[in-house]
């Protein structure tokens, strides 16, 4: 879906996301503001480097940041780290897709029938509050030590978040928009497809974003502890076992970068699809 219609773009400036809207400040300030997000990481790396150089922490526990970054870049550029990275991404994507494809319609349906939602609310809230890692042994019994197991448990954890957010999106839909549709003569089905689904999009996206983070967390944990032979989690725990700290930190950084990238990706998609959000 396009944020601006082509016709509108001809006559007037196209719609731009709110983030880029704060432009008209003095140019000096803008230059500074652009550099601000990099201050934190640079300071962190400087402190990290100093701590190692000055010998506060032994290099066997904490390698210099240059080494860790080197291992990260070398590993991702065709090294074995890349293979594990890809495997983790694939498992997360699978788990996420299962959760999204099942969860969004289920959540929207439950939300549009409040009695149905109230009757399963406790179950959803209970399992949503249960740390999914606590369920790993249960899933081990069902799926065995397999690739499916890791995807299944991550999908389960992510699913509940999606259902919960989509359902609440429908339940908390702006009452007045629903009334506006009703007064124009919309049937229940028309209210559902023209108003409720759209109203639920934004909270659903919040759900999807949390769900993909949750899926990544569970996949990494599962790779660490459920007899995996691949994936970032597996790589982190293996390099820790043999005290290959350079590789361990590189894998941790890779996992962090993956989580961050997924979050940003979803924010961008959300801004494109739910273009009216916050306006």
């Amino acid at each position, binding site marked *: 879906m396009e944020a601006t219609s082509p016709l*509108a773009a001809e006559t*007037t400036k196209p719609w731009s996301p709110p983030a880029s809207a704060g432009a008209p400040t003095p140019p000096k300030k803008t230059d500074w503001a652009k550099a601000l997000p990099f201050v934190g990481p640079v300071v962190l790396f400087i402190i990290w480097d100093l701590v190692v150089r000055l010998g506060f922490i032994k290099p066997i526990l904490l390698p210099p940041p240059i080494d860790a970054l080197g291992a990260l870049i070398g590993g991702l550029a065709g090294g074995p780290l890349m293979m594990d990275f890809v495997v983790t991404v694939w498992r997360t994507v699978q788990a996420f897709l299962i959760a999204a494809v099942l969860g969004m319609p289920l959540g929207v349906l439950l939300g549009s029938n409040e009695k149905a939602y109230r009757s399963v609310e406790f179950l959803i809230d209970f399992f949503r509050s249960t740390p999914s890692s606590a369920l790993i042994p249960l899933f081990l019994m069902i799926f065995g030590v397999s690739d499916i197991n890791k995807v299944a448990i991550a999908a389960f954890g992510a699913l509940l978040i999606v259902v919960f957010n989509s359902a609440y999106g429908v339940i908390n839909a702006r009452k007045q*928009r629903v009334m506006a549709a009703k007064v124009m003569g*919309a049937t229940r089905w028309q209210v559902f497809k*023209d108003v409720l689904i759209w109203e639920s999009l934004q909270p659903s996206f919040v759900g999807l974003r949390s769900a993909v983070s949750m899926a990544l967390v569970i996949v990494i944990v599962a790779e660490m502890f459920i007899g995996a032979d691949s994936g970032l989690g597996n790589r982190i725990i293996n390099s820790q076992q043999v005290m290959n700290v350079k590789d361990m930190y590189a894998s941790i950084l890779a996992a962090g970068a993956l989580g961050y990238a997924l979050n940003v990706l979803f924010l961008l998609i959300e801004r494109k699809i739910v*273009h*009216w959000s916050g*306006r």
Partner: protein
Amino acid sequence: MNAVLNAPVFADVPAPVFQPGPAGTHITIRGLTKYFAGWPLYENFDLDIPKHKIVSVFGPNGCGKSTLINMIAGLVPIDSGEILFDGKSLKDTKIGYVFQNYREAMFPWMRTIDNIAYPLKLEGKSKAEVDRRMAELVASFDVKFDLNRYPYELSGGQQQTASIMRALAPNPEVLFLDEPFSALDFEMTLFIREKLQEVFMQTGTTMMLVSHDLEEAVYLADQVLLLTKRPTKVAEILPYDDPRPRTTATLSEASFIDAKKRSLEIFQREVRR
């Protein structure tokens, strides 16, 4: 047999005989009762709304001005009573409704023009019919802004103009307006007020307008409906017959000032009661 012969006598209270309003009545309200938090807001309320007229509803705070038009428009359920439009029920009647809060009344996922065309889409009108009606509306409202934009890209006044266009798109028999100007600045209020008057002169659509601004209420009205404090009754119905189009000059005419003064007197009498 015996049991039947000696059955206790149940007598039904005879249903009140339906009294039709005077000739030219559009909306007939009989025995309307609505409880709010256990207290009667309306009890056995009768009212006739004339056809092809603008009725402004005015009254003390909390007397249920908006609730009244919401009940007539079917947005708020009534406890008992009967509301008929030319003898028909609401579901056989085409109505339009303009909300005070246009931001939460328009659908931000549709372009403005699609918002305006939405009620026609619900009626299952063909593309050609919709396009024709849109061209008509755009011409009669003399729209200067870009209807291809999303509602949130427009100013408040433009959004409210669009939501009035949406309400009028299916040629409703009655148009309800719930404080349509109170979220707008003065300039936009004047502009939309004139547009509304123009549309009324073109179409003669029956309108019910809730307003908290007495001048605005009288300026647009053929009748000012003044309500009492709750349990709400009709305090008085003041006719105001100055010819249309009314202009700024109308505001300083003796008849206008008189109508406003009398409304204010009744209003103050009711507030003090």
